[in-house]
């Protein structure tokens, strides 16, 4: 009886170790140690990156003599407090675009899990045959660097002195900023009701803004309550306009009689810096066939923006907001260095888009 138990436990242990080994991607690496196809070469590279074996991945590049190792590592592990520094490569899909005897092009879709949710990245990789093995030819794009210089920044900064706890009842506080909802549009999506619109800070001081909404049924009872969460630019400078989006999952428009909007604004300390330009915006179809709004972000200040967050509002021909989409950018924004971005648009909405407007939210570690 005792020996049977020992055998069962041993087998279970071996099985569990095997599962763990398989889950860690080691089996894949073992199988693909010698990449016999271009896809296998890319999978091997990505499996090593997923295991954070950057040395091993770098050693597998066909042109590692031309590729700076730190730059290669930073492409996947992030730098300057960017979103990728709070992310892990969870999985990837790999498929060939075209293949020859000596060269091939392989597309990889990388799925990261990040501190703010999933993030996808699509990369087209050139693969070359070296003897019997295929190796990835990593693009040699030396990261643009700004020459050492002083960038004078003298934008406004607002500080707030609030009423103290020991002050008398009669000592009034500084008023909250005046923020107004400019528009609201309720849209039925296949699995949800979405409220989109814009809000403006009408005041002469910065505001920390959040928009909430309560759906009421035909008997004026509350159906659901949600807020814009991160689908809004929370810190609004004077006269700045932000799009917002509020999602109500599993809701039907027919059930809703009215919507009660609630905009909350707090007086906060803020700076007018950094100014981020959104250049070369255009609606296009990405390599996977999805409709996207793409462009470039340019940080015009001298300070690094760690995690940029793009929020785009789309308008129909009547100027009505018909959709709001957002996306986090994996790279940090270094001064004067353009960084590309793209945010999705549902295809049924994309065909009605007449114009659009992009704002950039930013999260900086030194302000956290």
């Amino acid at each position, binding site marked *: 009886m005792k020996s049977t138990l020992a055998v069962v436990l041993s087998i279970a242990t071996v099985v569990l170790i095997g599962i763990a080994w398989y889950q860690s991607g080691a089996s894949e690496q073992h199988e693909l140690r010698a990449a016999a196809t271009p896809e296998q070469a890319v999978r091997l590279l990505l499996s090593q990156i997923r295991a954070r074996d950057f040395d091993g991945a770098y050693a597998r590049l066909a042109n590692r003599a031309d590729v700076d190792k730190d730059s290669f590592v930073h492409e996947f592990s992030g730098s300057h407090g960017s979103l990728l520094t709070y992310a892990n490569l969870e999985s990837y899909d790999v498929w060939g675009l075209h293949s020859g005897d000596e060269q091939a092009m392989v597309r990889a879709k990388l799925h990261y899990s990040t501190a703010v949710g999933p993030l996808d990245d699509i990369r087209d990789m050139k693969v070359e045959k070296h003897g019997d093995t295929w190796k990835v030819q990593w693009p040699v794009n030396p990261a643009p660097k700004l020459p050492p210089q002083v960038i004078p920044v003298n934008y406004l900064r607002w500080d707030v002195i609030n009423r103290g706890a020991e002050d008398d009842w009669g000592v009034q506080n500084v*008023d909250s900023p005046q923020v107004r909802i400019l528009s609201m549009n309720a849209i039925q999506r296949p699995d949800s009701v979405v409220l989109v619109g814009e809000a403006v800070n009408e005041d002469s001081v910065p505001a920390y803004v959040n928009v909430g909404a309560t759906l009421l049924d035909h008997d004026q009872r509350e159906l659901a309550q949600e807020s814009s969460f991160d689908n809004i630019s929370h810190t609004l400078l004077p006269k700045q306009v932000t799009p917002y989006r509020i999602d109500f999952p599993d809701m039907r428009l027919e059930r809703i009689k009215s919507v009660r909007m609630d905009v909350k604004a707090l007086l906060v300390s803020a700076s007018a810096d950094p100014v981020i330009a959104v250049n070369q915006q255009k609606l296009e179809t990405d390599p996977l066939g999805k409709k996207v709004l793409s462009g470039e972000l340019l940080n015009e200040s001298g300070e690094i923006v760690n995690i940029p967050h793009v929020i785009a509002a789309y308008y129909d021909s009547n100027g009505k907001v018909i959709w709001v989409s957002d996306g986090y950018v994996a790279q940090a924004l270094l001064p004067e260095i353009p960084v590309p971005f793209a945010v999705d648009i549902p295809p049924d909405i994309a065909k009605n888009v007449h114009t659009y407007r992009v704002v950039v939210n930013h999260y900086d570690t030194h302000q956290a």
Partner: protein
Amino acid sequence: MSKTIPFLILVAAAWSARAADLHPPSEATAGNSISILTSGSGKATFYLIGPASVIKRQVQAGSDIAVDGDDLQNSGRYIAILCGSDGCGSSPFLVNPAAPNRLSLQVHPSRVPVASVNGISVVAFVFDNFHNLALRSPPVKFSILPKDEKPVSADRPVENGVAWVRLTSARKQGTTEIGAAIGHADEIRVVQQVAAEACNLRIHANRDKNGFLVETDPVRDCSGNPVPDGTVVSFTMSDAVGKTTVDVPIKRGVAKIAMPIKGRARISAASGVVTGNELEVGG
């Protein structure tokens, strides 16, 4: 609740018994001492039940009972009760607020656009030294003390302890002090009168080494006040490459941005809900 019931019983007993008589003044002033005449003889217990306090004291019936001003700081209805060996007697009296000597001044909003008709609400709550709301009070003197201009003041009557006035903000931006005074109290609040919406927002563009430098004319409201620095002007440029948008805060009265432009481009600007002119450049 457990303490209220014995008091009610005590008060009821006092009303019904009427054995020892008290003669307090029918009205007193908060913070002032009073003397209550009593009748009867022997040792008695004196109770004074006020709106926010109760005192109990052993006294000699038939002699005057001195009540210190400290025990009469809260205005309202008091009941004096005297219980002797032959029962209890009671008498109510009123304590009025003392002379107005404190103010709570509420001024809203703390920032107001210029030329807002009745845009500023000024409310003064009048109290005596003991925080009793002074229901009857002489008028409150409201003052406006603008910077670099002569102060203006006016009296407003107090109704139920409250006096108020609505003011129209000036046409010129800047801080102004709003004051209210009564007795020794003199409270001041600061209201910031800020420029209203931008008026006639105009942009112009000049070539620079990388494209165009697009700049607003000095941004002012319709009264001619410069819109405060930090106010955002949104520039939008469309050229052959795509569209560019930049939210630029006003600095030293103007907002400006360098835009690399390929081919012909249309540039426009907006601040909040105000839109400016449109430029066509390049070519």
